[in-house]
C-alpha cells in the first residue's frame, strides 16, 4: 500500500489534509517547493507528523560544508530528507542513514536497472522521472521504494542562472512581483517560472495527474501530491477525489 505524501504550504495544512507524510521546504537548500519553513517550525511538528524535509537544491562546492552542517542539525529531529543532488545523497548515506533519505533526481531515473542500482544503496525512496510514458511509470512503480509524482507541476528547466533578473537588468525593465510565466513565441500556453537565490525553475504548463490511474501505480511506495502552484480549491478537490 502506497504512502501518500503532500507538500505543505502552511503548517495548518498538516491538520487540514490527511496524508501519510508531509513534505516541507527548508529555509536553506530548497530550490523549489510549496513553501519554506524555519528549523523551529519544522521542529515544532516533527514529532507530530511524518516529515520529509525537501532539500532539492543542487549543491555547489562552496556550499557543501554548510549543507553538511544543516543536514546534521536537521537530522537531530525525527525527519527524513528528500534530495536531488548526488553529493547531498552521499552525505546522508554516510553520516545519517540510507533509511532517512529519498533520492529524487527528477529527470534521471527512467529505467529499472538504474532504479535498482540506487535501490542497492539501501535508500528509503527513489524518485522516478515524471517524463516517462504511463506504461513506463507503471512498470517502475512495481519496484520497491518508488516515489511517483501523483499530482502537481513538474520542473522542466532548472538553472543556476537568475534568468528573469538578468533579463530585467539587461533590458532595464522591471517586472511586477508575483507569479510570472513564460510563453514560447509560437505556442499559446504559459509556463510558470520562479527565481530565487538558487537560480530559476520553469514548470510544465500541464499538471501531472495520475489520480485516475492510481490503481495501476498503487505498488509505489510513495505517491506525492505537490501543491506548489496549485490553488487551495484544486488541492481540496484532489484530496476529495482521492478519498472517493
Amino acid at each position, binding site marked *: 500500500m502506497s504512502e501518500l505524501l503532500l507538500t505543505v504550504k502552511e503548517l495548518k495544512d498538516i491538520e487540514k489534509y490527511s496524508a501519510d507524510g508531509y513534505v516541507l521546504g527548508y529555509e536553506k537548500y530548497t530550490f523549489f517547493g510549496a513553501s519554506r519553513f524555519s528549523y523551529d517550525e519544522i521542529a515544532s511538528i516533527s514529532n507530530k507528523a511524518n516529515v520529509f524535509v525537501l532539500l532539492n537544491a543542487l549543491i555547489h562546492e562552496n556550499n557543501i560544508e554548510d549543507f553538511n552542517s544543516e543536514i546534521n542539525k536537521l537530522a537531530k529531529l525525527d525527519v527524513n530528507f528528500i534530495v536531488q543532488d548526488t553529493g547531498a545523497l552521499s552525505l546522508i548515506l554516510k553520516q545519517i542513514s540510507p533509511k532517512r533519505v529519498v533520492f529524487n533526481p527528477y529527470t534521471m531515473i527512467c529505467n529499472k536497472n538504474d532504479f535498482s542500482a540506487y535501490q542497492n544503496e539501501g535508500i528509503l525512496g527513489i524518485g522516478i522521472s515524471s517524463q516517462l510514458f504511463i506504461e513506463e511509470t507503471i512498470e517502475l512503480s512495481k519496484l520497491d521504494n518508488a516515489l511517483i509524482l501523483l499530482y502537481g507541476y513538474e520542473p522542466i528547466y532548472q538553472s*543556476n542562472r537568475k534568468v528573469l533578473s538578468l533579463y530585467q537588468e539587461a*533590458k532595464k525593465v522591471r517586472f511586477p512581483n508575483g507569479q510570472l510565466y513564460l510563453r*514560447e513565441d509560437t505556442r499559446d500556453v504559459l509556463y510558470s517560472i520562479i527565481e530565487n537565490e538558487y537560480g530559476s525553475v520553469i514548470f510544465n504548463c500541464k499538471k501531472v495527474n495520475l489520480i485516475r490511474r492510481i490503481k495501476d501505480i498503487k505498488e509505489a511506495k510513495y505517491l506525492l501530491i505537490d501543491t506548489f502552484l496549485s490553488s487551495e480549491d484544486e488541492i481540496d478537490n484532489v484530496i476529495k477525489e482521492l478519498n472517493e
Partner: protein
Amino acid sequence: MKRVELLAPAGDLDRLKLALIYGADAVYIGGKTLSLRTFASNFSLEDIKEGVEFAHSLNKKVYVACNMVLHDEDDKETLEYLKTLKEFDVDAIIISSLYLLGLAKSINLEAHMSTQLSILNIEAVKFFAERGSARIVLGRELSIPEIGQICRQSPSEIEVFIHGGMCSSYSGKCMLSNVMCERDPNRGGCAHSCRWKYHAYDENGSLEDEDKYLSISSKDLCTIKEIPALIESGVSSLKIEGRMKSHNYLAFIVSAYRKAIDDYYDGKKYDEEYYMSLISYGENRLTGHGFLHGNVTVNEMLFDLSNKFDHAGEFIGIVRSFDHYNKIAKLEVKNKIIKGDKYYVISPNSEIKEVKVLEMKYKDNDVEQYTIAGDVIDIQVDIDLKEYDLIHIIR
C-alpha cells in the same frame, strides 16, 4: 610533469582524425547506441575500431559517449555493446548511469561520469569515484576556485569544459524540448529550446510588447584566458564541446587551445590575442566565460538571439591528399573557390600561411571557379600542402 589532456569532440571518423592531427590528445565520439547526440552522424562499430586504432597509433585516446539517460527500451544488449568497446580497446566510456558504471566495472572498462549528472561538489565526485569511476566531468556551473577545491580532494581525475555550447539549465535537468516538441534532451534529442524566443507574462497578461522577447539562452563558453588558471587548479582534462561541429570549427578551436596549452607548459609568451584570432576563424557564436568567475552576469547571457560572432574567415575547402611533385592537391570543396585567387592555409602545428591557386580541374576539365560543396577538385598551388590542411578566405 603530466600535461593536461586536450579532449575534442568528433562527429565522424574523418573529424576524429582531423581533431587528433590538429593536436587533441583524445577525442570523444558517439556510437549508434546509448549516445546523447541523435543528430550527430555517430560511429558504426567498424568506425569506432578504426578510430581507436588510428588514435592509438598516435599514442592518443578515444572515449565513447554512452551518456543517454536510459529508458528500459534503450537497454538492449548493453553489456554486449560495452564488451565490444572493450575488445576494440576503447580507452573509456562516458556515462550518466550508475547501472552502466556497474556494468563497465564488471568488464574492467574505464568509465567517466558525464556532465549530464551535474556533479558540482566533492561529495558527489567521491560517490561515483568510490563506485568505480576513474574520471568525473564536472557540471559547468562551478567557478575556478571551486574546481580547484574539488581537484585537491578528488580521488578521480577531473574533467572540465573549456569551449563550446552551454546548457542554459543544469545539464540533465532540462526537459523544455521534450515538453515542447517531444524531443528528449536526455536521449539525444535536444532541440535547443532554451535558444528560442519567449515572452513574459503575469496573471494580467503580457508584460512587454509582442515585438520584444525574453531570452534564457547562454552564450557559448570560451576560456582561452582561463586556461592557465584551470591547469593550475589541477584538472586532468580540458574538454571542447560539439560533436556536431564542422571540420573548420574543430581545426581552429583545437589549434588555438593546443597552442595555448603548449605555450603555457613551455614557458612561452601566453599570447591570448593570437589564440583568439584562431578561434575567430572557427567560432560562429558569441562567447563568454560561463561560471568560471562566479555567478553569471548579463555578459554571459545571449539576449539578442540574432547576434553572431564576427566570423573572421570563410571555409573554402579541406585538402584530402597532396602530390608534392606536381604541387597538386585534391580539395574537398566547401565554398566557392576561384582560380588565380590567394587564400590562407591552416595546418596542424603551423602558422597560417598564404597560398595561390594556379590551376583548377574538376574531373580532368579546367575550371575557372568551383562552388559545389562536397565535390573534390584538383588544385595546383604554389606551396606544399598536406592532408587535412584547410583553405580559407580571411576577412
